[in-house]
């Protein structure tokens, strides 16, 4: 992907300085709730990035943040719930990677904008 001539056009919808600024702002706003910061990072990645791999990582970050948040607010819960969430994230990641590999055969840039044929 990095060597693809058109890959440079696949920039996130916000520039790096603005993204850093937003991340610092979110970190400051959630200083007492680090898990919420992780969730915000996941949501931000989903909204800003255009690459399918970035979206998959965003999903992992989002799931991790929510699981961490659960461990903080309800520590007495049985561990089976955390195990279930982890299992879901791991299997979901493998399925996502398999789909990305198949999508790459049709859309080598892995641009999420190329997956907009089904509409209406």
């Amino acid at each position: 992907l990095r060597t693809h001539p058109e890959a440079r056009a696949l920039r996130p919808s916000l520039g790096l300085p603005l993204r850093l600024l937003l991340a610092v702002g979110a970190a400051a706003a959630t200083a007492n709730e680090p898990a919420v910061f992780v969730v915000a990072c996941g949501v931000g990645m989903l909204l800003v990035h255009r690459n399918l791999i970035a979206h998959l990582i965003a999903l992992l970050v989002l799931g991790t943040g929510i699981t961490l948040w659960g461990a903080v607010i309800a520590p007495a819960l049985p561990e089976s719930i955390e195990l279930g969430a982890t299992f879901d994230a791991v299997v979901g990641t493998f399925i996502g990677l398999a789909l990305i590999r198949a999508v790459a055969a049709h859309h080598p840039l892995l641009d999420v904008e190329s997956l907009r044929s089904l509409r209406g």
Partner: protein
Amino acid sequence: VNAFVVTAPLAAALLPLLLPAGTPRRCARIVLAAGAALAPLLLADMLDRVALALVLLVSLLAFLAVAFSTGRGFFSRLDGDRVGEPTAPVWSRVSVYFALLGAFWSAMLLVATATTFSGLWLGISATTLATAFLVAFAGESLALEAAWKYLILCSVGIAVALAGMLLLAHVTLAAGVAPSAALSWDAIGGRAFAAAPAGARLAVALMLVGFATKAGLVPMHAWLPDAHSKAPAPVSGLLSGVLVSCALYALWRTVQVATALGCGPFARETLLWFGAVSIVVAALLMLVQTDLKRLLAYSTVEHAGIAALALGFGTPLGDLAALFHVLAHGTTKAAAFFAVGLVQRAAGTTAIGELHGLWRAGAAGRLLLGALGALGAMPPFGVFASELLVVVAGALAGRWAALAIGVVGMAIAFSALARTAIAVEAGAAPTARPLTSAGLRFVSTGAAVLALGCALATVLLPWSAFAR
């Protein structure tokens, strides 16, 4: 017993792989699937009536989907032309298809037999994982696009529901519920909460949004028309007929818990407007569809909206109407997708503009007409009875504004289905091979489902409610 019932479908899908391909494996698939469909009867005394009804719906329709898929020639032309080709993805294999179908069936049983939100959430989550490859089964670009949207949007929805569930646990633990029962709807319902605890409303809102995403309610419906229209026909039937029903069941359980926590009116009101908006938006989008499967997918959004609307009325009759509508719609929609599968197999297309004269072409065309009429709520089908019950429940509850919006949406949806039925059924018979050659076994499968939906109308409808 519970573990046996839940894992039986997956085992029934995997065991036939030990047999040689061909007739022995096909026969084993049907026999073992029939056994897995009967296994839930062991739970008859352990589940409440709503869960039992969902278990039976899951088992019946999943078995029919397996039988439909096992039919000779199903994979040669229908939905999976690339099956067996070297360039096809690994999941476009018949053995993988049946294994995933078994996993999907097991996951739905996990939802229906759960007694806590953690089990229910795990089941809902597992359905997404099991069906992502089924949606992408054809392996072509549009199927992959549909599968990707399905995976991402549903995973986000499930994550939101998880956040709500964890917050709910925080609330119930703070109220003194034991950790092992913090997410049990029976345990929460058995406690008296004087006022809604802090955080309860946010927990309920997150769970409603998360599970509504899986149910395909507007505005979280974007994945549903794509996934349901690109999956193979039997899988589409299960996605629309049963998976959406499982998500609606999760919404109903959430409303139950919300009522116990003292924020029931908030949950009901949210569902009421989710439902009303879903009906109208889906009905308007049905008017502009040019593909039969996509039209049926939007019809699923509309019917999920009707069930949500009925739940939103907040009366026992509304809840009953919602349950009845879920059962009637599930059976009818599965029959509709089976019929479209037959049409697609014979005509090679599902484009409405390219289909005509299906009524004269054979039994599948007539089955499709019956299914479209049933989905449009024509008597004497089950959906007619359930929608009538929803309207009566809304009128008795005095929710006129939401009910009026819903009824307008139902009328628009009916006109979209009627227009499509006329377009594809009227005219000269197509010159392609007649639809009867698709196999009467498939037709009878779909017809049996449709007949069941119709029978539900007469057997299950609480006529005494009308008298009161």
